[in-house]
């Protein structure tokens, strides 16, 4: 199995402050890894470091076997696509134009687009569910729609590795399912490797192969979701009462809030 | 904060530029001052061929005439120019005075004397466009200090240009009259006018010969209390009239003084160049200024409005100005 992305003992600093340290994982072809943890744990930092936006102050980050630092930006952009937490919405641009920017790493010197480029853009838009919005100015769209446009742009890059930072935070249930389902399908059908930062643990468990739980900059758990998402670990990590239940359809953990810490609510609702 | 080399170099460069600025301020008016040194070799020199050998034939061959202008360029005329453009009001007056008015085809918009100038084509004064000048097909273009930056341009477009900067003292005015007289083929008339003016200047100098302590004069150029420094033409006139003036030690051409300086120096005469046709000041407005009532000039009613156009234009009428000045300053002298 080819490791598309590997972190080994990675430490990332912001100025002099250490954000994450001792991070080790491997992401292979066709694998989806979820990156979870409380606020401020350092998930976005790892995502940005994986995208080449932050240097590792210790340890090594490898992209397809080569040190990430040594991969030229153009090559890196053809392999790896990154979608930030906040979708970019530069005023005046239409949706299709923004998605088309994803083809930049593949274009020649003069930036001229070919038929293939246009077809790839259309396909990316369809997969992300934004085909009907093609002519609309980005400023008019809702946050969720803008998020999907950013995802479409990432898909237009035809990456081998996709890094998504909280792609579902603004999406409704339908689009949560469709985007993560898309990522899952692409990983299975086309060998896409994906690193997805996500808050919803249950959702993560459904769509990922492995889950990395991060707490205060260190790895708290790493492995298949069923192994990592255990109540004691989660309660310790998140500092709030939680319960883990089995999913009705699959062997996948579902994490729910426990009322143990909220006696008033417990007395209100009906008993199970 | 570290101070990388780049920053240090840039700061040094900026400091250098500022130093140049300050230095230039100190000697920036240098070229004006040179030209104003009385009696010095003026910037313009003229050579004419010597008279023919036989003393009986007293006709002097008028041409060719060579002129070296204020910029150091020598221009030779083989015959009198017939289509002259003048961008200098002072030079225009001289041209008409020596009788070359008929040879002038274009003047700048400030050349308003003598009245015949109104019949000539009007041109711009500041940054004149070459097009209208070319259309007049001139064989001589006279430029002054304001148009200095375009002398090269006009020459490159095929016109003959003489850069004659405004004279800074009386001697230079007389030179310019003689020069333009020779260039336009009116050497005799030019000489006559210059000689007459010289006589009148001598008369004035005799009049004030006995003066040991001239009156202190404040020459007001603007209501914001700008005055004329010694390097200006006005300064040289005041010096000839043996007046002392408040701005005597100034290094710049038109320094601005404070009211305190003027009040404390207590001038005997105040000349207003910002009154009459050139502004709104007058004896009554000066009296009304707080603190000025105590000044000798105000108390003795010696606040005079003068025609600033006349005072500022170094041309043939300049001696009228000088005589007027002496009348104002020394009402008792003959």
């Amino acid at each position, binding site marked *: 199995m080819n490791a598309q992305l590997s972190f080994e003992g990675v430490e990332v600093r912001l100025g002099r402050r250490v954000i994450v340290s001792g991070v080790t994982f491997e992401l292979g072809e066709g694998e989806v890894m979820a990156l979870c943890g409380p606020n401020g744990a350092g998930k976005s930092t790892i995502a940005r470091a994986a995208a080449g936006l932050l240097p590792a102050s210790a340890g090594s980050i490898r992209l397809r076997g080569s040190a990430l630092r040594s991969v030229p930006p153009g090559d890196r952009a053809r392999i790896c696509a990154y979608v930030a937490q906040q979708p970019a919405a530069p005023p005046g641009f239409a949706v299709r*134009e923004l998605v088309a920017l994803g083809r930049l790493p593949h274009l020649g010197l003069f930036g001229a687009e070919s038929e293939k480029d246009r077809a790839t853009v259309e396909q990316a838009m369809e997969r992300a569910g934004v085909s009907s919005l093609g002519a609309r100015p980005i400023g008019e769209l809702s946050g969720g729609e803008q998020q999907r446009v950013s995802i479409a742009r990432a898909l237009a890059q035809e990456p081998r590795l996709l890094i998504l930072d909280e792609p579902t935070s603004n999406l409704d249930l339908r689009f949560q399912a469709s985007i993560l389902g898309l990522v899952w399908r692409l990983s299975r059908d086309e060998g896409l490797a994906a690193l997805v930062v996500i808050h919803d643990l249950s959702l993560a468990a459904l769509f990922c192969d492995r889950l990395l739980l991060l707490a205060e900059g260190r790895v708290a758990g790493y492995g298949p979701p069923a192994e990592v998402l255990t109540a004691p670990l989660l309660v310790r990590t998140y500092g709030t009462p939680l319960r883990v239940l089995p999913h009705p359809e699959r062997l996948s953990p579902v994490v729910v809030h426990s009322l143990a810490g909220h006696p008033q609510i417990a007395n209100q609702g009906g008993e199970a | 904060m570290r101070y990388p080399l780049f920053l240090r170099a840039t700061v040094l460069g900026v400091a250098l530029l500022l130093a140049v*600025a300050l230095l230039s301020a100190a000697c920036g008016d240098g070229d004006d001052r040179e030209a104003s040194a009385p009696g010095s070799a003026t910037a313009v020199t003229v050579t004419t061929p010597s008279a023919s050998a036989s003393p009986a034939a007293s006709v002097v061959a008028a041409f060719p005439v060579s002129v070296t202008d204020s910029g150091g360029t020598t221009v030779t005329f083989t015959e009198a120019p017939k289509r002259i453009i003048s961008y200098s009001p002072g030079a225009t007056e001289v041209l008409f005075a020596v009788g070359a008015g008929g040879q002038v085809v274009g003047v700048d918009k400030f050349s308003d004397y003598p009245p015949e100038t109104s019949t000539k084509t009007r041109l711009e004064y500041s940054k004149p466009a070459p097009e209208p000048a070319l259309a007049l097909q001139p064989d001589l273009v006279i430029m002054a200090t*304001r148009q200095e930056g375009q002398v*090269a341009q006009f020459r490159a*477009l095929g016109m003959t240009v003489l850069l004659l900067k405004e004279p800074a003292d009386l001697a230079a005015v007389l030179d310019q009259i003689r020069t333009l007289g020779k260039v336009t083929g009116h050497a005799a008339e030019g000489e006559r006018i210059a000689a007459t003016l010289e006589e009148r200047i001598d008369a004035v100098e005799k009049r004030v010969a006995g003066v040991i302590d001239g009156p202190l004069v404040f020459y007001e150029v603007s209501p914001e209390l700008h005055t004329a420094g010694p390097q200006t033409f006005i300064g040289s006139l005041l010096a000839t009239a043996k007046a002392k003036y408040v701005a005597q030690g100034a290094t710049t051409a038109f320094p601005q003084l404070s009211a305190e300086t003027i009040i404390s120096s207590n001038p005997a005469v105040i000349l207003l160049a910002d009154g009459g046709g050139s502004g709104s000041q007058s004896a009554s407005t000066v009296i009304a200024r707080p603190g000025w009532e105590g000044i000798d000039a105000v108390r003795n009613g010696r606040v005079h409005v003068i025609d600033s156009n006349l005072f500022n234009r170094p041309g043939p009428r300049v001696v009228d100005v000088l005589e007027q000045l002496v009348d104002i300053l020394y009402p008792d002298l003959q």
Partner: protein
Amino acid sequence: MSVRARLVFARPAARPAAHLVLAAGIPVLVAAVIIATSVGAVSIPQTTVAATILRHLAGQGGAGGPADTIVWDVRLPRVLLAGMVGGTLALSGATYQSVFRNPLADPYLIGVASGAGLGAAIAIVSPLPLDYYGFGYVALFAFVGALAAVALTYELARSGRTVPTANHVLAGVAVSAAATAATTLVMMLNEARAFVVFSWLYGDFTTSSWEKLRLASPYVGVSWVVLLLCTHRLNALQLGDDEAATLGIRVERLKIVTVVVASLATAVCVALSGLIGFVGLIVPHACRLLVGPDNRVLFPVTLLFGATFLILADLGARMVLAPQELPVGIITAAAGSPFFLILLRRQRRGLP
């Protein structure tokens, strides 16, 4: 479908018209050149103008006479220089607006104008010979001053190896203020030449010449080519520095190259023709409202329209009060503002 929605859908879909605008730009520019060369303070018949130009182009030299000199040595270089400067200022403005992600950026934002003004002022008041015709000392000092100001602004805004945009703008404001104050000081200490400095600062094309064109073309030409090649990467920059980096762009290098190149060309233009405002701000903005934000179309359109605009503005400056010439900056402001306001109102009506 509501009227509003129809307007909204129409605009981006009308973008294919952008290519029409681009195609129309060239004949419009050529027409402006022809008109501007044919009209002037001195009236010369059209046929003579055309004949003169053709004769020179055919290599037969001039026919002599004032008309020939006026058309070939005075008007034509002036019109071409106005076009070159207008195109450069507009293109630089569009570049800065992209790099700084700020539609109010203009080519004078990071110190070019004030630095050039200070340099020119120093040259004018110094004992150095005063010659506007070729690339004399005034132009040289203006050029050096502009570059020094840009370098100083950059150095002040830099933190480590990156230049945060907001800092860059603030540093530009600070440097500009300082340079302007220094210029005023220089003028006050040298009143004899103060008016000369003042009139240089206005900007005008009175002393245009073939020599100036020859001197400026290499810098300006290189700048145009480089900027036109960077258009798509500048598009990506609109997504943000991070996103652009993940699209494979070397963000800092792109910013430095484009800003330096645009500043260099702007400095050359300012050195030759003084400070002309509005072109670098209004023209790219107006073009963006017409053809959209895709720089691949916007930059060429801006270049063409900037050139045309300034040629026509200079024509106005020459003709409005003929034979007196107005400073061309007044015309650009007077013409630019209302046109821009009209465009803005039309734009606003099309959006919710």
